[in-house]
């Protein structure tokens, strides 16, 4: 490369990168040689620069020797184009001008690479650590758990401004190529400005950008990712997010916890049954309460009917307003305890749950039975292991409650039926949402 061209590149790079406080342009001199480096110090690792660049520069006296050194270390990439160089520069690469050539020196700093503890999907037994916020570390975590040559990793970028790196992982033996193609098309068709984490995709998956039920599983557990890879799922890792996205996701995945494989057979079957019962209760119970107290009290036993009637005696509002009031209170409580700092979280639950509930019955605003029902609904909602899904269920119960208010028991049945019909309609990258067994790739396909 002629010298004046190098000068030209240097000048143009300098003019394109504005002079920010952390932009460094430095010249180093020895008797025999000199080098110019250009980098942004906040995203570059200066210790790497020091160890791999400055030290050898001053130790090796001969210019050719240093050039050979530069060309042989793995961090060095040769210059391709100006645009590419700028992009790399903004990601933490240092641009070196030495003699009559330009090098890109990979000095990206990898912050946030500490592995976090699981906080969302906790299990009693089994691995307790989750992903970190660094993409290479996360990939490393998965590779460690999945030492297979068939593990394929593709990289794309999502986000017009953020240009976030996204890794697509799959096992070539198990993953369905059609699904993989659909996922890649989906990623390339995304129209996002800022892409920060996989959860953002939950809405984008639908054409209308409005989804009620999540169709992808966002997990923080490397062990879940490894297990899912082996069943043929495709994993998305997003740079800067401690969550991985598992695709395609069906309802069975939302209802499974990693604890299932860390428990004995009957225990895990029992827990699964418990979850499905919890799922149905949290969706139907408020509706059932309204339907039975206001339309069909004959399905209670007489003792229960009388005790409900007795406890409702002081309540001035019809049952559905009572339920709405209490559910609303519970939603506020749940929402507040997420936002609160961990130290005062329990206080909020105590004040809200115990004192408010007690006071509400004392004041005759709601009946005793209602408190039981609301806490039952809340608790059974938390039984659903994947958070994103249990949030969706929180909304569905209002739909069934509305139908129950209008049509009684028939409304509950029809509401649940419509809900199931809606689930049947859903699919995640071609996989029906209520699938019980994941489809395997066709053998004759490539």
């Amino acid at each position: 490369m002629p010298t004046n061209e190098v000068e030209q590149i240097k000048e143009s790079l300098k003019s394109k990168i504005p002079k920010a406080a952390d932009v460094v342009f430095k010249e180093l001199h020895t008797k025999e040689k000199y080098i110019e480096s250009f980098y942004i110090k906040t995203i570059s690792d200066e210790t790497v620069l020091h160890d791999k660049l400055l030290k050898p520069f001053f130790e090796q006296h001969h210019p050719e020797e240093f050039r050979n050194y530069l060309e042989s270390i793995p961090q060095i990439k040769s210059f391709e184009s100006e645009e590419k160089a700028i992009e790399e520069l903004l990601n933490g690469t240092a641009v070196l001008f030495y003699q009559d050539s330009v090098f890109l020196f990979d000095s990206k700093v990898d912050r946030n690479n500490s592995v976090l503890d699981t906080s969302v999907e906790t299990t009693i037994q089994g691995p307790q650590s989750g992903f970190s916020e660094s993409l290479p570390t996360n990939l490393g975590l998965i590779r460690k758990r999945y030492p297979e040559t068939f593990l394929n990793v593709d990289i794309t970028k999502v986000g017009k401004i953020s240009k976030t790196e996204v890794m697509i992982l799959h096992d070539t033996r198990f993953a369905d190529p059609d699904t993989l193609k659909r996922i890649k098309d989906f990623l390339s068709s995304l129209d996002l400005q800022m892409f920060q984490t996989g959860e953002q995709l939950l809405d984008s998956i639908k054409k209308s950008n409005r989804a009620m039920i999540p169709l992808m599983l966002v997990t923080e557990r490397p062990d879940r990712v490894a297990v899912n890879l082996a069943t043929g799922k495709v994993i998305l890792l997003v740079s800067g997010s401690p969550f991985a996205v598992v695709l395609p996701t069906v309802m069975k995945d939302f209802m499974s916890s990693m604890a299932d494989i860390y428990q004995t057979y009957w225990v895990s079957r029992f827990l699964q049954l418990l979850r499905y019962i919890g799922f149905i209760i949290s969706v139907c119970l408020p509706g059932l309460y309204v339907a039975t107290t206001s339309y069909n009290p004959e399905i209670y036993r007489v003792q229960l009917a009388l005790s409900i009637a007795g406890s409702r005696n002081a309540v001035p509002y019809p049952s559905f307003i009572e339920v709405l009031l209490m559910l609303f209170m519970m939603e506020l409580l749940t929402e507040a305890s997420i936002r609160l700092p961990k130290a005062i979280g329990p206080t909020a639950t105590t004040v809200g749950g115990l004192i408010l509930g007690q006071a509400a019955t004392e004041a005759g605003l709601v009946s005793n039975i209602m408190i039981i029902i609301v806490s039952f609904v809340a608790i059974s909602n938390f039984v659903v292991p994947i958070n994103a899904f249990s949030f969706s269920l929180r909304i569905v119960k209002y739909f069934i409650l509305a139908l129950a208010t209008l049509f009684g028991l028939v409304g509950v049945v029809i509401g649940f039926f419509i809900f199931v019909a809606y689930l049947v309609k859903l699919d995640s990258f071609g996989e029906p949402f209520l699938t019980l067994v994941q489809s395997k790739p066709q053998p004759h396909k490539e």
Partner: protein
Amino acid sequence: MKTNGGWKIYSLFLMIAFLVGGCGFKDIDKRLFAVSIGVDLAKDSSKKYLVSLKFAIPSASKEQPNDFYIVSQEADSMSEAVRILKTKVDKEIDFSHAKVIIISEEVAKSRGNAGMYYWFNRRRDIQAITWVAVGKPNAKDILKVKPKSEQVPSNSLFLALGKDGSETPYVIPTYLFDFKYRLIERGIDPILPIIEAKKDYFEINTAGLFNESKMIIHLAPEETKILNFLKSKEEKSSIKVERGKTVIVIDSQMVKAKYKIHTPKGSPPYIKVNVSVKGKLEEASRRVANSQLYQYEKAAEKTLNQEFKNVLKKMQRAGVDPMGFGLRYRSRHFNHDDWEEWKKIYPNITFKVHTKVQITDTGLIE
């Protein structure tokens, strides 16, 4: 629904939904639960019945038990009575927990009450699993009884008739659907338990037998037990047997009865009843050794044979058929006049009862 009119359709649906939903919505605390219904003959009045409803008053606190009150109305028909009763109470009357219907003895013994009986079946909110019973001396007195052990009004009746509580062979509970079926069906007649009101408890150990539409006879406690054995409905009971001077009581664990109607050509028809009883010795006036049990079994068989025969004959003489022999006959014979035939056969049919008693042990270690 991406058209502009989408919201119109939604709001129309919502409005229709509200219109439809307007009916039927009635909160549980705005309902008055009738727990039992009593029907008496009206006295000193031109009306026919005296209908009493026992309403449970739900109590707000757990400490005080649920109270009740009884409202009565004289009327010529049930629906008339209920319509007027509605004006005497503040809340909507709900029959969905009316689980006992008490008919006074006088009403049960009089004719022409079919309209009243079927009213219970016709009403949507009275459950088909309601028990029907005859009240003595009258229905309202039964409703007034408040046993001390009772937490929910009428619950002791529910427990006794439902056999959730005490299990005894002296009660033959009858459901409303069964009562109606037996009233209508040719070849099977209704049985109703008779409840007698004492000061603060009930006594249920007799049964009334209906013919077509009215009560003809009633069975004594022991006869009621035998009828229960025949129906194979209750197995836990005690059977008293005398052999010479020794009196023993068998605690039965299993009682099974089967019968078959034989109509041999050329000879008179007969009904063969096979009963097998299994139990153990519960009480004896003298020492009974294990080796003697066989003799007591034989004695028990003889006693039971006679008791079964007596009850069957009593029912035959009265012309009632609560066992459903007629129905069995009609189901096995396909003539057009099977019912007429049976009416000729039944008064003269003979019963052959064969009992097999097995006493497993004396209850003591020798």
